[in-house]
């Protein structure tokens, strides 16, 4: 598979290294000459000292035969432009962008970026996991962001206490599927009765799904840490 990586910072460098070790063909576009030389010293002649935002240089790098383009510079605007040029000018089938400001994620999806990597979002998610919060934890995005894998903790005061999954009215496309109780992991069954301390993994479809899950499983507790 031929992969183009735009941006030779830490993310681009280690990404390229792993991909090369996995046997893929790739090229890195890095506009800073010093940095480009440094990467070439480490990884060999797979670096083009060019600005990956320029159509001309994407063409030089063989964008028209690339299967994937990964835009992982530190600037959201550059990453968006790289992906849009790749997609619309060179018909690259799969575009992946690093997004630094989590607020930009929706816009990127909307503008046709196929996959989004959000270091900020990931760090937020781990912080949320470390602190006892009464919020939905976002674990992963499914189907390009349309659905979200979330975890809800059933605390004292939760409206779900003592209720069964069948008592909870969820909107279409959202579901409860895994129960973490003590050291046990089990599927959520129709006869499961929720107890304080349970953690429930669920799939939420859209904001409506999240709102209903929050209302039904968590209740009106003030969030301790919020993602937004």
């Amino acid at each position, binding site marked *: 598979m031929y992969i183009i990586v735009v941006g030779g910072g830490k993310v681009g460098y280690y990404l390229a290294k792993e991909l090369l070790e996995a046997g893929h063909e790739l090229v890195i576009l890095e506009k800073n000459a010093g940095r480009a030389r440094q990467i070439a010293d480490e990884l060999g002649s797979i670096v083009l000292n060019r600005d990956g935002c320029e159509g001309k240089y994407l063409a030089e790098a063989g964008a028209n035969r690339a299967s994937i383009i990964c835009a992982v510079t530190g*600037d959201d*605007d550059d990453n968006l432009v790289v992906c849009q*040029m790749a997609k*619309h000018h060179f018909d690259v089938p799969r575009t992946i962008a690093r997004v630094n400001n989590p*607020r930009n994620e929706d816009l990127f999806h909307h*503008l046709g970026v196929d996959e989004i990597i959000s270091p900020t979002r990931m760090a937020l998610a781990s912080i949320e996991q470390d602190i006892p919060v009464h919020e939905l934890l976002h674990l992963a995005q499914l189907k390009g962001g349309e659905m979200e894998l979330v975890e809800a903790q059933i605390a004292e005061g939760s409206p779900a206490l003592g209720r069964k999954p069948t008592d909870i009215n969820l909107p279409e496309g959202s579901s409860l599927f895994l129960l973490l109780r003590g050291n046990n992991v089990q599927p959520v069954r129709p006869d499961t009765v929720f107890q304080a301390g349970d953690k429930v993994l669920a799939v939420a479809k859209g904001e409506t799904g999240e709102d209903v899950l929050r209302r039904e499983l968590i209740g009106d507790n003030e969030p301790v840490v919020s993602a937004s």
Partner: protein
Amino acid sequence: MRAVIVGCGRVGAGLAERLARAGHEVTIIDLNSDAFSRLEPDFPGQAIRADGTDEDVLRRVGTDTADWFYALTEGDNRNAFAAQMAAESFGVDNVVAKINDPVRAEAYTDLGIATICRTRLLVDALARYSGLPADPGADGVRRADRPHDHHAPSTVTGLGNRVEPVQQES
């Protein structure tokens, strides 16, 4: 009408002055407050030091109620990004991005963003001055090739918008 301008360089400041003096409500944004020295001391609009590619900033300055949005920083990508945010996230009808790389300008016109490309305008002006025929694509702001539906589903891969010339206030 209300206009939001991102980038207070010579072009941004010049346009802000013209629009504001013509009686329009103008907000101009730049990351660097020194840039505002390009405005006249009695500039009748609003100048805000902030990042014009940040959605929260654009919301705060009321981009959702703007009739016009101009992305005029010195960075082509920043302009392409801010312009698409204005069109897509805030539903602004008339959005123009300054994109000086002719290839990228062309690409974004295809994607439905009106663009102005300084390189192409200057090359054409100089070529015409030298007696060569005019480049038909270099006559000012290039309108987007197709109309834009702000509320299109997320499968949309590009944008479009309608561009009308600025009305002269008499």
